[in-house]
């Protein structure tokens, strides 16, 4: 009975915009706001290949890289809300593009409806292997002793790493860092290994290989759970900093106004694809930590993260350099 009623209601809802009941009737486009070959793109291609059979239509990956994702998201926000144009949303990159007034984003947080999250890559604080800092405590003590002297590298202005440094400064009053912004993980890694910067903030996935090879040392993972890739590294909540929680997440979103029945269908198809052992295996090989979130959970995460990002973006913009 209940199922029948739900079905009837969803059919009614779906019938309103034409064609929603037989979604998908043509190939679906999945936009990635970064160039081909990057880690968002790699993960997108893995899940798209598996979701096709559940969706019953092919999924075409569209790479619309540029302006830290802004080019792709701008284009996405202008699409018809029929479910045939989906996009990956990278958080908090999407949030800061919207929140930074200088970026003059043509869309707001409500332009997208989160469907399902795929990856959650926690932030990590790390140093070169021969650094005198053996623990987060060492770093914070030094940062208090000589404020604004220790240089800390981010992977970009207003990146999750940049916000994470501010969280650390907030949670440990008196400790301040000299911020050095690099563009992406590769130049940041070069600068740390060359000994030009003291410590770095990045995501677990980017450094796991070098932790294992013994070139760098991870001091703390900024997530409530320990990372399966770095099981010996303590988390910031364990070390007494429960407010220092930062990560980069990637999930699939639809355009605002997409019919609920279409969202449900997408959610179910992508969920099955993400739970497929092949997906799990390939993500693990790529060093990407999975975290499936759907429905209310993902929607709440999306909103809460936006509020948190708003606070730190404001702070980042007003914080004097030095």
């Amino acid at each position, binding site marked *: 009975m209940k199922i029948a009623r739900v079905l009837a209601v969803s059919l009614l809802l779906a019938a309103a915009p034409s064609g929603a009941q037989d979604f998908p009737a043509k190939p679906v486009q999945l936009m990635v706001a970064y*160039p*081909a*070959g*990057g880690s968002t793109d*790699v993960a997108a291609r893995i899940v798209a290949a598996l979701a096709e059979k559940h969706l019953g239509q092919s999924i075409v990956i569209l790479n619309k890289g*540029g*302006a*830290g994702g*802004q*080019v792709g998201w*701008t284009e996405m926000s202008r699409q018809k809300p029929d479910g045939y144009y989906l996009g990956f949303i990278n958080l908090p990159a999407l949030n800061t593009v919207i929140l*930074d007034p*200088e*970026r*003059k984003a*043509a869309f707001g947080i409500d332009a997208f409806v989160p469907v399902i999250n795929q990856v959650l890559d926690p932030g990590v604080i790390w140093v070169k292997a021969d650094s005198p800092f053996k623990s987060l405590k060492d770093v914070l003590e030094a940062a208090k002793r000589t404020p*604004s002297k220790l*240089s800390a590298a981010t992977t*970009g*202005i*207003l990146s999750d790493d940049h916000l994470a440094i501010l969280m650390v400064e907030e949670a440990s009053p008196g400790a301040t860092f*000299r*911020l*050095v*912004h*690099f*563009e992406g993980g*590769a*130049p940041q*890694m*070069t*600068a740390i*290994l*060359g*000994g*030009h*910067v003291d410590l770095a903030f990045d995501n677990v996935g980017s450094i796991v290989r070098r932790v294992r090879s013994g070139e760098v040392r991870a001091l703390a993972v900024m997530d409530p759970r320990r990372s399966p890739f770095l099981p010996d590294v303590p988390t910031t909540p364990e070390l007494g900093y429960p407010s220092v929680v930062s990560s980069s997440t990637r999930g699939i979103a639809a355009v605002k106004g997409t019919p609920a029945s279409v969202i449900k269908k997408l959610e179910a198809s992508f969920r099955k694809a993400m739970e497929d052992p092949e997906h799990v295996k390939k993500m693990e090989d790529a060093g990407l930590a999975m975290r499936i979130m759907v429905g209310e959970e993902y929607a709440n995460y999306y909103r809460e993260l936006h509020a948190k990002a708003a606070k730190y973006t404001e702070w980042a913009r007003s914080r004097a*350099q*030095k």
Partner: protein
Amino acid sequence: MEGLQFLASGFAAALSIQNLLFALAGCVLGTLIGVLPGLGPAAGTAILIPLTFKLDPTGAIIMLAAIYYGAMYGGTITSVLINVPGEAASVVTCLDGYQMARQGRAGTALGIAAIGSFVGGVVAALALAMVAPPLARFALSFGPPEFFSLMFLGLCLVTGLAGASLVAGLLMTLFGLLLALIGIDPVRGAPRFTFGIVELYDGLGFVPVVMGLFGVAEILLTIEKPFRQALATRIEGLWPNREEWKRSGGAIGRGTVIGFLLGLIPGVGAVIPTFMAYIVEKRLSRNPEKFGTGVIEGVAAPETANNAYANASMIPLLVLGVPSSPTIAVLMGAFIINGLTPGPFLFKERPDLVWAVIASFFIGNVILLFLNLPLVGLWARLLRVPYQYLCAGTLLFCVVGAYSLKGALFDVGVMLVFGVVGYLLRKLDFPLAPAVLALILAPFMEKSLRTSLEISGGDFGIFLERPISATLLVLAALIVAVATSRLAALKSIRRGP
């Protein structure tokens, strides 16, 4: 030598049927691009980049690199037979090469050019294999300040040596730097000079700009000139005689050294080494007045230098991740599209790919020697195709190429606008190379400048306190001083006593 060991395994990979075919395809395309006036290696590789999206990265990079050095060979043929450079690095070859052809010695000119190119290319590739791995380890001591100073040195070189006027060179360098300001500020994240156009947030794509400045502008210049018939000379006697060997040997040796050394400095471009090699030969010659009347050294030296340069300029890319010429910047794009970041870690992380590519340089140079000695007549025949067909075809390729980069019509517009800009600048005798190299280096320079200042807390002293950086800056100052005095001397000669 560890380099030679890795090189052996690289050969194993490069000699696979698939990679051999990629090298052959690259060499043929490169020679073609070199032979056709108006289409240089930068525009040529840029057009072909979208084709490589679906290829295996090793093969794609082998092919694109072969196009680059292949064009250095091909450009000679046009210079010698029509007195029009097939691509910019063969400008100097026109001086003596065309005169040799008029005297019925086209074969010898082409022969010595091919042999010199081969020697320069192979020696530079060998030196690359030996010095690159130790340099890659040393590269970690290059922090942001050293990067900045190295690129500053490169820009000073281009500005100082680009043309007859230091002011024109400086203006064009500034023009390039200004163009590079368009886009999102790499440190503060604020858009600059974008006028709200989202397509401009990433800055002007240098590929459409290069295709416009070098490709479209060249076509516009070509169509206003009357069609020049290739010299109807028989190409024979490719192999130089004993006397010619004796005179070319030293020129080839010196050309190799000059080309290789200049290849190590980012931003120099392939044209400057050819001029330097030519000038050095003229200075050393017992009969400098004979230069320009068809002396074989005047062909051997620059043709050797541009090939040694082409292979050596891979070193800053592979070791530091800095592109040193427009074509190398296109190649760098091919690395990045395939998820590879050129830089000190590439040797360690993808030795298979790096060494296969380096090994392919040797194979490519052998292929090119065959394409350019026994088959040179075939390429010469191509020059009999009337310009109007070639121009239309090239323009079509440029439009398709610019569009297919990102699937954006905007880039086609950028290319056409810069085609007209390039045409006007060429008419006014402004050198284009400094503008393009500044456009390519500026984002790297700006990032390293601002990162250095973030590290030092805003203190410019960081550039002088660090020994490597200070040395590079002193060299840059010397180059500017030499260029200024050279040009001042030229002026006073013109004015008379």
